[in-house]
């Protein structure tokens, strides 16, 4: 089970609060571009949660404890979210703010081993707490709490999320 449930609940609360503020602040923004349906309920902030050029992972929802990667990382062991919690096998959600067209590819094992957990396109986000989870962190089953390494790859995998 998740070892830091309270941190996650707290992080999610922060994310929800920030989302609410942003939605209020942007309610008068310009309409969607032609041919595209952008509904108010779909508004999710990007920039504040993952800085320019970074690939970000979160302990819970967007806006919760974060670790930002600028390059590939072969092993999350030893990396910590900004609340001190270890990153390895505790990635819940992810955001990609690449400035060079790099996809974020997350793997079950270190050194990009064990198969692909999921991948995120430039500008894409996999939004909080809804990746599948079997409740056992790091056991290679499900997608949440499983990632152990990140590889930046040029954008060729069109099935990545955006």
């Amino acid at each position, binding site marked *: 089970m998740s070892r830091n449930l309270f941190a996650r609940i707290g992080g999610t609360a922060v994310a929800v609060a920030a989302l609410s503020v*942003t*939605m209020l602040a*942007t309610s008068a*923004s310009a309409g969607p*571009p032609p*041919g*595209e*349906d*952008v509904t108010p309920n*779909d*508004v*999710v902030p*990007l*920039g504040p949660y993952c*800085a*320019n*050029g970074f690939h970000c992972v979160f302990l819970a929802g967007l806006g919760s404890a974060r670790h930002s990667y*600028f*390059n*590939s990382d072969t092993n999350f*062991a030893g990396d910590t979210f900004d609340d001190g919690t270890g990153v390895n096998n505790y990635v819940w959600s992810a955001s990609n*703010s*690449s*400035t*060079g*067209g*790099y996809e974020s*590819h997350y793997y*079950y094992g270190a*050194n*990009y*081993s*064990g*198969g*692909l957990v*999921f*991948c995120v396109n*430039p*500008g*894409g*986000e*996999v*939004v*909080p707490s*809804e*990746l*599948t989870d079997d409740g056992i962190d*790091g*056991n*290679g*089953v499900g*997608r949440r709490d499983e990632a152990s390494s990140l*590889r*930046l790859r*040029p954008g*060729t*995998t069109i*099935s990545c*999320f*955006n």
Partner: protein
Amino acid sequence: MLQLTDDTSGGPGDSQSPGRRLRLPIVLALLFVALTAAASLVRPDGATPRPAPPDDPGEPPIFALFEHDPAAQRRISVANERLVIDCMARAGLRYESALLRQDGEPEPEQQQPFGPESPDQLAPVEESGPGEDPSLGTDDYLLALYGPGDRRVTVRGARMRVSGPAEGCVAEATRRLLGDKRRRWMEVKVLLFEAAEDARHDVESDEEFHRATRQWQGCMRGAGTPAEDPLALLDSRLAHQTDLREDPAMRADLQCKRDTGYLTTAYTRLTVAQRHRLNADPSLAADWTRLLDRQDSVARELLTVGR
């Protein structure tokens, strides 16, 4: 929500031996199926298919969709990057595309739903790219690329939510390739991903798969490296952070998969499970192919004009 359906055959003649006058048509039909299957393995772009286990039962259909027409997928990616470059240039900004700067072709991602299948998959991946360019980290740059942070297109599957920028050059490029079908494309990707997950979960309750796992377990005990199943084994070995190529248990895993035919059974059952999931919503496979073709058509035009 995707639902499981049953596609087992149950016609009145299923269990009866065909009469002599029926044998020639049946042989011809089988020959046609075999030739069709063989032809499907020859990729028109000459791309190398992913490694297949011995007695390959055929690729699970969702994985086949993901790997459908890699040349088209490459064209779409290149066209997308060129559109982003042009759009950023109009804003007076230079976009350095990792894809267009790369020498050679990136290795395709390989699905490993039952753990490693060959010794090369035990080896660490030797690949180090140049990474992000820190000189581009300005707010104006990100705004031009992705638009305002509060303008997003979001889709939901049964369990997950995914979003991408609604404005900016990345969104503009995607809109050029997909027209008003961008949301559906995003949705299809999420639903296929979830269907693949569901199918993998379905296999866990399949009796033939259980039998194959028991045979694998027996083989592993005989090798002196007992384990519950290949994924549990892989997880326990990954925790040691060692080179898997030097790990006796991982080598035994590969040997036992070969000796017991584990992967053949596993992939056969996964193929059936994925087919069930796809059959529950035929629009997924149809829309994936249709929207891939649409993007490729636009990409071909763009790349021809750009020459």
